[in-house]
């Protein structure tokens, strides 16, 4: 995953972008992390940058983990930036923005409260688009090895000799 646009410093890159509603930086051909707190940027080729930013926010709203940074959500949905997937995603995000408008907001990204965004998603949860995004996240988000330590999950253990000498029975609060 290219989180940095080649040949540009983060500062240069951010200077080209504009803050999107919730806080992504959206520029020509990229989406970047909220302000200076997060050090990542995702280039997009086939999706509009704003579409990708909306998709990342939608991903977080579906599976919100406050201790998990946006870059992991971005990584989980970056696969939709392909010639095959992009048209469906553009249409789905357009419909999401329409629904936001219909509910009296601007775009989806303009809705400030998670609760209000989730209420909107609930009205769309039977759609193929929502289910595509949600279903993809089950593996796209939770099967990222970089995410596992955030949840305490230790993953592979054979190479460490299992847990026979590493705490398989170390519970001390019972």
């Amino acid at each position: 995953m290219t989180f940095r646009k080649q040949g540009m410093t983060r500062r240069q890159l951010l200077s080209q972008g504009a803050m999107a509603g919730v806080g992504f930086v959206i520029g020509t051909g990229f989406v970047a992390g909220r302000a200076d707190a997060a050090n990542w940027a995702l280039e997009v080729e086939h999706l509009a940058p704003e579409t990708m930013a909306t998709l990342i926010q939608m991903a977080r709203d579906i599976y919100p983990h406050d201790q998990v940074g946006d870059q992991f959500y971005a990584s989980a949905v970056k696969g939709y930036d392909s010639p095959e997937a992009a048209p469906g995603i553009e249409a789905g995000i357009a419909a999401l923005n329409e629904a936001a408008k219909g509910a009296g907001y601007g775009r989806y990204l303009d809705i400030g409260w998670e609760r209000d965004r989730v209420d909107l998603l609930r009205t769309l949860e039977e759609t193929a688009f929502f289910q595509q995004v949600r279903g993809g996240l089950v593996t796209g988000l939770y099967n990222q090895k970089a995410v596992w330590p955030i949840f305490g999950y230790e993953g592979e253990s054979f190479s460490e000799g299992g847990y026979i000498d590493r705490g398989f029975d170390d519970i001390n609060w019972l």
Partner: protein
Amino acid sequence: MTAPFDLNDDSVVVVIGTGAGGGVLANELAQKGVSVVALEAGGRYLPEDYINDEWDSFGQLAWTDPRTTSGDWRVSRDFSGLPAWIVKAVGGTTTHWAGASLRFQDHEWKARTTYGDVEGANLLDWPIDPREMDDYYTRAEAKLGVTRTGDRAGLPGNNNFKVFEKGAKALGYEKVHTGRMAINSADYDGRPACQQTGFCFQGCKWGAKWSAAYTDIPNGEATGNLEVRERAHVMRIEHNQQGKVTGVVYVDADGNQQEQKARVVCVAGNSIESPRLLLNSASSMFPDGLANSSGQVGRNYMRHVTGSVYGIFEQPVRMWRGTTMAGIIQDEAINDPSRGFVGGYELETLALGLPFMAAFLDPGGWGREFTTALDHYENMAGMWIVGEDMPQETNRITLNHDVTDQHGLPVANVHFDDHPNDVAMRDHAYKQGIAVYEAVGATRVFPTPPYPSTHNLGTNRMSANARDGVVNGHGQSHDIANLFVSDGSQFTTGASENPTLTIVALAIRQAEYIAAELGRQTL
């Protein structure tokens, strides 16, 4: 040392499938000097190949050929194309199984007599006397190295077990221990003791868990009497004008169709593929499929009453560490209709890694209700319910002619509706499981719906009378003397125990029968 048999050698016994049924049967026959060709749809994977990673392992081992589902079971909604979580590989689902090895209780062999006439259930007694099984069970336990049988010690309890045990004892449960497991508690049969690695479901990289892939299969091959052909997918079984089976047609590893002649054919492809094969072998003489004069092929599909309970605690459990299923409460595995259902259930420890927990905790769930559960993954404990479900004629495997597999064959449709007895049992088990965890201070509990089925049973069932089932008490089809069923599909009823030990014991018994009948020239 592999014995290469000629395709036209019609003296061989062909075994289709190499799991707990077929793999054991093939070895047992080979040990007795019988020539065996075992055809396995999957490839060969050994401990060095297994992967400590849930999705990567699933991609390596699982049977993911297309299938369809119908019925009111939640698996059909959540995993419509994946009714079962079973393995396509040499050794079959013995690579994936957790190792729980329990004998049936006497009354479970006689379900119709014990439970009476349960409305909507197609109950039948097994045509086997429980005492007849004692010796076969003892031999199966020795083969598998089952802990807490013979002089084999139990496994040590991991963190997940300690939470489970404390809650169970607080509720007054007495039959609580680390299980009778086909996982070595000490070096046994040339395989090491359990190293508490976790990942039992992904294939044991130590070989501490028994699997046919690295025990019975190579042992059989070493005799020179067993040839295992990998990536050989059987399409149909052939027969002659006398109504005897004569061989099988399969697609070999290179995609070419071959026909292997046979003196005897034993079907052991599990309870979905075995009836599918019999149905796909329909001919002008047997228009409803082979061995199906009773109309029972594919019917009475059972999958055990299952479900899980997960609990979140104030402090870490780290349930994934150590043996996945070494923990059991057996107090509810009795027949006590005062609970509102017949039959019983076991509660067994279970852990999933984070990736599978995300997929299985509440399939389709999302939002903070879901994610706050995973936020406390480290503080979770888990258990699995295994109970006896009711055989129903309408729960069945049929051919779906609208969907074909990579070989152009109609796929299996798996239809399942819960019986009211199943629902009552599951609800009771959820309640008890939740109580176990609340007794240890759980702050939140999750009665989690069933996963895709690993215990697939009953679709070619044994019966005393030919009109009630597909095979007799030796797994020999009522209609065709030289056609046998050798897997869990021959189960008349499911009992409350994990089925593998019984499948193995029946395979040992069937091998004796087939060898004896071959000697008598009756096959």
